């Protein structure tokens, strides 16, 4: 990897220091996604009080977390995007995905005169972000908002300028519902946006939306809830308009359980269930299936088991959607396959 020098110097130096200061078997290190950081730090905190196990987590971004897993400097990585087949092959050993919680991406908008929640259909969202629908009084928007007077104002489509798991989920959704989008733009943590402006981070997007009448932008559900942003109801695959919520997000995960059982990396966007919110995604822990140190492996395995049971109860308090039971069972089954030096990791 040629990309590494800059990163390695900065990050592994830091992690190295942390590792050196907390080298006991009762301590774990992880690095990666920023999206689940609030719930993870809560988990680590509660888990430490319960068991004395200290977990250091660096929220340096999914991409950097994957690099750290590859370099073997952490016990686990965390990523909002599942690894591609190519990326999995690129890893020195077999890496397992453990979904931990689910999140959703909501479309926040700024239409001060609108009294009822905005409703959007997949083709309208695609049209706005492709730059083909440019004003709010467009016929296609009116068609899904019957009886609502929409202004003749220009639409400012706001996206994340920084690479992010949120963008990945959003573009996965757009690619799932639109052939042209898949062909022209595709899905990734950052893409080549055909139009609109970019804000840095959830706060950047929300800032632009909040202060620009006529703006629409996508942010995480948790961020939108905590900041009380007006969010659009989306028409899902079943044809129902669904408000973004923790329940409708969990419903989307549950609807995808069968596909997840086949491959845990399957995107859960555009779920088929009647009450499923269509732009949802999982966030994952990345763990080597086989590790050298049986003690550390057991500590990590126990933590994940705890996160699946007690940890899930904490999710809602921080605006993350809990996993449905089917997916939790799946994680438990995957946990049983962990080995250390070729031997099974016990409880």
């Amino acid at each position, binding site marked *: 990897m040629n*990309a590494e020098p800059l990163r390695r110097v900065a990050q592994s130096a830091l992690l190295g220091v942390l590792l050196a200061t907390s080298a006991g078997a009762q301590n774990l290190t992880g690095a990666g996604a920023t999206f689940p950081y609030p719930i993870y730090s809560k988990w680590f905190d509660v888990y430490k009080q319960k068991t004395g196990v200290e977990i250091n987590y660096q929220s340096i971004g999914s991409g950097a977390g994957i690099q750290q897993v590859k370099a073997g400097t952490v016990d686990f990585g965390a990523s909002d995007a599942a690894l591609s087949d190519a990326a999995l092959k690129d890893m020195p050993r077999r890496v397992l995905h453990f979904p931990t919680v689910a999140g959703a991406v909501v479309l926040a908008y700024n239409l001060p005169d609108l009294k009822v929640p905005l409703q959007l259909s997949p083709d309208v969202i695609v049209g706005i972000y492709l730059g083909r629908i440019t004003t709010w009084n467009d016929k296609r928007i009116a068609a899904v908002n019957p009886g609502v007077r929409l202004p003749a104002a*220009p639409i400012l489509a706001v996206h994340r300028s*920084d*690479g*992010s*798991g949120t963008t990945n989920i959003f573009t996965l959704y757009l690619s799932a519902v639109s052939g042209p989008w898949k062909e022209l*733009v595709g899905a990734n943590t950052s893409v080549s946006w055909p139009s609109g*402006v970019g804000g*840095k981070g959830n706060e950047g997007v929300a800032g632009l939306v909040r202060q620009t009448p006529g703006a629409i932008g996508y942010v995480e559900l948790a961020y939108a809830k905590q900041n009380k942003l007006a969010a659009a109801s989306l028409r899902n695959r079943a044809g129902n308009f669904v408000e973004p919520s923790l329940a409708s997000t969990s419903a989307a995960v549950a609807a995808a359980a069968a596909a997840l059982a086949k491959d845990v990396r399957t995107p859960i966007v555009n779920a088929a269930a009647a009450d499923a919110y269509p732009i949802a995604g999982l966030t994952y822990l990345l763990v080597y299936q086989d590790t050298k140190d049986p003690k550390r492996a057991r500590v990590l395995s126990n933590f994940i088991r705890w996160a699946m049971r007690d940890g899930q109860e904490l999710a809602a308090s921080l605006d993350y959607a809990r996993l449905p039971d089917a997916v939790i069972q799946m994680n438990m089954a995957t946990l049983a396959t962990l080995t250390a030096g070729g031997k099974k990791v016990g409880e």
Partner: protein
Amino acid sequence: MSTGTLDPRDAALPALPRGRGVRAGAIVDRAYHVTLTAVALSVFAVVALIGWECVRGAMPAIRAFGFRFLVSTEWDPVAEKFGALPYLYGTGLSSALALLIALPLGLGTAVYLAELAPRRVGGIVAFVVELLAAIPSIVYGIWGLFVLAPVLRASVEPWLIAHFGFLPLFRGFPFGIGMLNAALVLAVMIVPTIVSISREVLLSMPRSLREAALGLGATRAEAIAVTLDTARPGLLGAVILALGRALGETMAVTMVIGNSNVMTLSLLAPGATMSSVIANEFTEATGTLHMAALIEVALVLLAVTIVVNLCARLLVIWSTGGRRDVAGAA
């Protein structure tokens, strides 16, 4: 910074003490010389190391795209096709615009502070201006986003569109963020640099210059013009330092420029700069080629900075006819 005849190379060395002290003095001198040379050379080593690491990191992108990287407008992380032209353009345009706005402001302030203002007022204003230079760039970014953008959106940009909308420069919607906002924020950020260095340069001009001009019957404005002309190399130095800050500024620009890699002439449209795309995409770039392309952007930025500095040096040497005493000042 001195532009007078106080070049240390010309100054006579103090006489060395005679007798026993000579040897010890020579050794100390030598150690002093070696240490300072090493310190000075380490700067080169750091720059060379940065350059080398960038080339190494960028190699996959250099191999894949070659020269096309500099002229292609496509930046598509999904298809792994990368071209840096929109970012080169954005960096160049935003910095040039910022300089265009900041230069008259900064130079005017410096002339006032050095030549016209009462001594105490000059000192106080200079202190405040230098304080501006110490404000973190994120604060400027937030100001640009939450204070400047609404003003631009509500009054400035609609006015520009209504009166100059026929120019491609002012076509589009008044959204408040974009190239114009970025240039204004950058201008505010580099004014302190221009002011504080220019003021120092002007203050270091010999009084005799002004007095001679006034004595020959020049008006006050003409005398100032003579001083400015003499101070030109130093003033150019101030401008180059300011331009350097504008070229490399990341955080504030990222927050207000709109981050779009679509190249347009319109100042109202969103754009992106080399440093903003690195700041935006570096942490979450998972593809090898994507990462390499970002590092190559850093390499291009480094090259641009070096070229700008070289051009400035040449400009100073050329404009002073190669007189080393003043050319060294920039």
